[in-house]
């Protein structure tokens, strides 16, 4: 097996020495590389493949943000992390685009270890190197231009509230993902494990959102989304699935942390679809026209080279989202009627699948009748019925929101 290649970049030799000793136990499985400047790092990268780069921000010459931007374009398959003691918002905002995960100095050893592990694990989630490069190179997710237009108008108004911004951002999965990345990583030294856009906006504050939009490296509009891809419907589906899955989690009495992660997974499930459809419009068309008789998993894999959930999981893993979210997305069954999938899936993944199916406005390939009678292991008929009962309140909530 290949040893993981990890490079640290810092102009302070003491920091590098400290990291080397901190990670001494990993020396059996990780190859650690050290660079005293961004220039040296880029030089090394041009010769040798590195899986993960962890860099300081403020360095003489080329800054950490500039280094990551260069790596993003030159070596998109390399995961990009920042380890910085910087407290200056301006510099952090400048680095927000190309940075996948942000770690603050001083960084506890376990946090650093988890971040590196997560980045390395992400590589295992995506076999296709082309898709790995595609998703790895993203600084901005594909999103409809209208969101950006409305957002700039919104933040220019003095009476805009955080709720106004949240209502807008939640209409687009890409924007939601970008904002959640900033709070889930410690970019601004904020609490991690934020699973709702409202909380994310409230934590960041309108000032930071405004600065991010003005700086132009987060929440920027992109081109290339297929016109027949209804991003609003996708976002709506995500929100409704999120509510449904949280109700299921509460019904089952699961830990609040896992309920939150489950909700986040439901909310962001289709972000990968946006990325894939935008990058490969022809594959999107192929997916739409695929044989209806084939399984959903086969149709997605045939069209895109991976499932939508896998692509989303890869992106979110790279971007430092909680492992529970990533895992659930990666293993979420696509068709509950498939007994094999149903049996193999974890309860979390099953809950997500049920919630998505319940809230999907599109006709579903597999009829509910096909599997209700089937033997189900964990998801036996009673449990499935109970879970399906949570749909009503979701619709009610939606109606209330639409009417307000």
């Amino acid at each position, binding site marked *: 097996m290949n040893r993981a290649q990890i490079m640290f970049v810092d102009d302070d030799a*003491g920091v590098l*020495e*400290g990291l080397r000793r901190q990670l001494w136990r990993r020396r059996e499985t990780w190859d650690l590389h050290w660079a005293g400047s961004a220039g040296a790092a880029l030089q090394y990268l041009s010769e040798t493949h590195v899986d993960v780069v962890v860099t300081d921000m403020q360095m*003489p*010459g080329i800054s950490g943000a500039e280094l990551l931007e260069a790596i993003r374009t030159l070596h998109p398959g390399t995961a990009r992390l920042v380890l910085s003691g910087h407290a200056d918002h301006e510099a952090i905002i400048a680095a927000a685009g190309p940075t996948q995960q942000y770690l603050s*100095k001083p960084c506890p050893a376990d946090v650093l270890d988890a971040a590196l592990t997560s980045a390395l694990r992400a590589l295992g989630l995506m076999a296709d190197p082309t898709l790995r490069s595609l998703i790895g190179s993203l600084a901005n997710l594909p999103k409809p231009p209208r969101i950006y237009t409305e957002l700039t108008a919104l933040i220019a108004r003095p009476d805009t509230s955080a709720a106004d911004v949240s209502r807008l951002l939640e209409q687009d999965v890409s924007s939601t993902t970008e904002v959640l990345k900033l709070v889930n990583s410690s970019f601004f030294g904020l609490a991690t494990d934020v699973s709702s856009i409202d909380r994310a906006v409230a934590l960041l504050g309108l000032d930071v959102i405004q600065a991010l939009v003005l700086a132009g490296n987060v929440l920027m509009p992109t081109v290339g989304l297929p016109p027949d891809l209804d991003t609003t419907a996708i976002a709506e589906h995500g929100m409704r699935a999120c509510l449904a899955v949280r109700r299921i989690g509460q019904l089952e009495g699961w830990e609040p942390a896992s309920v939150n992660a489950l909700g986040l997974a439901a909310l962001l499930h289709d972000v990968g679809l946006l990325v894939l459809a935008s990058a490969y419009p022809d594959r999107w068309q192929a997916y739409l026209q695929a044989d209806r008789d084939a399984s959903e998993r086969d149709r997605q894999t045939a069209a895109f080279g991976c499932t939508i959930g896998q692509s989303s999981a890869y992106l979110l893993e790279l971007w430092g989202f909680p492992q529970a979210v990533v895992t659930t997305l990666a293993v979420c069954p696509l068709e509950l009627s498939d007994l094999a999938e149903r049996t193999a899936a974890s309860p979390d993944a099953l809950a997500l699948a049920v919630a998505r199916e319940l809230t999907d406005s599109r006709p579903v390939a597999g009829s509910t009748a096909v599997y209700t009678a089937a033997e189900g292991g964990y998801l036996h008929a009673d449990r499935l019925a109970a879970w399906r009962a949570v749909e009503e309140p979701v619709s009610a909530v939606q109606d209330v929101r639409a009417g307000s």
Partner: protein
Amino acid sequence: MTGLWPPAGGVASARAAAGAPEAAVQAAASARIAELESTVAAQQAVISTLVTAAEVRGESVTSLGTQHVVETRVARIHDAERVLRSVIESLEGALCIVGADGTVLDANRRWLRLIQPSTLPDGAGSPGPAGPAGPDGTADAGDPSARPSAGVAGAVGTDFFTWCRTAQGMAELLGRVEAIVREVIETGCVPPDPSLPPDAVRPSAPSGQERSVKCEVGPPGERRWLVARVHAVRDHALARAVVTLTDITDGMRAQVQLRRVVEEAQRLALVAKATHSGIVITQPNGTIEWVNEAFTWRTGYALGELVGRSRPDLVHDDGPNDVESRRLASFMANIVNSRGGVGEYRLATRSGEPYWASIEVRAVVEDGHVAHLVWVEQDVTARRLAQQRLAEAMTRAERLAAALSQEKTLLAGVISAVPQLVFWKDAAGRYVGCNTAYLTFCGLAGEGELLGRDDTCLDRSDGMAEALLELEAHVIATGEPVVNRTVDLMDGAGQLRTLLLSVLPHAEGSDSARGVIGVGADITHARELERQLAQANRLESIGQLAAGIAHEINTPIQYVTGNVHFLTDIASEILTAARSITDPAHTGTHLPWSQVSKEPALATLPDIAFLSEEVPAALAACNEGLTRVAEIVRALKDYAHPGTGRVDIDVNRALESSVQVSRNEWKYVAQMHLDLAPDAGQAPCFEGELKQVILNMIVNAAQAIGEDRMRRGVPELGNITLATRRDSDHLVITIVDDGPGMDENVRRRAFDPFFTTKDVGKGTGQGLSLAHAVIVTKHRGRIDLQTSPGNGARFDLYLPLVAEPTGVDSPADAELDDRDAS
């Protein structure tokens, strides 16, 4: 026979040639007389001839035929003579006919009256007092037997020349007449008039026929003008010359008078034309007949435009409906009755420009009716404006006076009400006045306890008297004000109070009124706030550095954390190994340490070479990291230390702490070189301000280098050098950078407040201005700046080793002192 008669044409021509009216009459009369006389003479000659012929023929003259003829002729002669006489006598002028021998053949009464010889020779008959003045010439002429000179018998036969010479009061005239008559007698012609050019046209009689002489006669006061005419008589038996004298005095007078009138009229016309006043002649209804140039010039109308228009209607463009126009028309109507009047009216020129005119109108009365109106118009706009301005000035002056009076009241109220202490004294230091605040400050109940007394008379123990005496003495001696002197006093309760005192010379009025004005403010509270503010400012600048300092601290903590994690791991391994060796459960026996088998436990440890290299290094790194954190914290504490006035400080240490806290600002763009003289020692400084200046200058240098390198794409670090040295009078701090430097324009303005070359939001432009305030003003030091584009900048801050007593210890005071010194 008829050929003897003078040709009719001669008479006619003589008549026709009479140019001047009076001369014509005279000439006609003379001609007529001469004609009649020659007729008479011709008839007599015919008679004589007839008589002679009859005698020759032996015919009796008494023959009937002849007799009848003779009688008829004689009767005709007498008729002619009577006519002649009456003509002669009816003449306005005096007339005298002179014969060939110079005797007077005939003269009329006027001649006799006019020319009265003093004596008449040969008793030829004196005219006597009333002699020649017989009232009725006709009676004399009626005598058929009488000689032609019957009416003036006394005169006839007398010698004309003798008469002339003896005539009284007319010597000049008669002398000239005499000469002409002589010539006539001798030559039959009048001599040419020497006063006329020879070829001059003679309009009257044919050449040589007549000559006139004009002369003034008579005694002074009764001078009269006479014209004498001498008419040569030709073809007459006896008469040779007819002399007439005409009194033309009245005519001459009338002529002179007429000339005068004409001249005067001309003069008036000239005046009217040339005067600056506008003159308008109108009909009684105001219709313009004539205007002078001044009027056209003033109004802008041409004469042609004006004639026929109504004067009052010209007032304004509004025409007859204008108020002023109606006023003028009514004024004009009154003039027709009152014959004259004056008024002032607001008029307008053709172009509408308004002006004021004083208009005097006089009626010209002819035959009892007003024939014309003469308008004399004078532009009084300037006067009106001046009056208006004067009135305005008066109003203003009155208003000012009122305002001044109010102001005075207000000022008195203000002075009394201001919370600052105000007092004024005479030159001897006695109080003349003060405000309420000062009374309260002195603890006095009323002015009476203060006025007229000086400070020494007042029982004051707070040191105020001494302070005032010193300041006032200085002001009176130099005449210069002392402004914003800080005075510390101990008040009655033992509290330190700070007063800001100004003493100004009061030099208004006479010497006896001279003195001083004192103004004081209790700034105890403000001083306290100032101290707090200075501290707050320092803290604020620390706050601005906080992000950088946080980074500075986070970095060493990062590697301390890493190393501690490593050491914890290793320690845990070692402990486990040690425990496994010593634990009885592990070995099962209690053996001495030396006899325990250590191999199994040690086998789980990393190799000893790794440990012996890494563990001490990790500990050293921790130590170093913690030292770095401690240094930063110490520098921060040092930097934030609030200075207490100007005290001796270790300048090198101040520099080091400034460098330390600003590390994050420079370390990515420049290397810092410290070249601090070990003997730099201490200097009296305001420590907080000095450190802030040093910090500003380091940050400035770093930013200059950073921006320059980024712009030029140079990745290498620049250099900042901080040095200290000591000369005889100063401790010199030098800050050198190898940034872009400044051009002359920037260098000149570098110390100006708010001047900055940085991008908006990057600098406030206060850094170097603060440096100037602190080093130059506050420390009485100086700053040298050497820089040029491309060659970096070098600042030398000179801090005096001996603190001059500036009496200031806050930035506010520093500025005021600076102003005083300039």
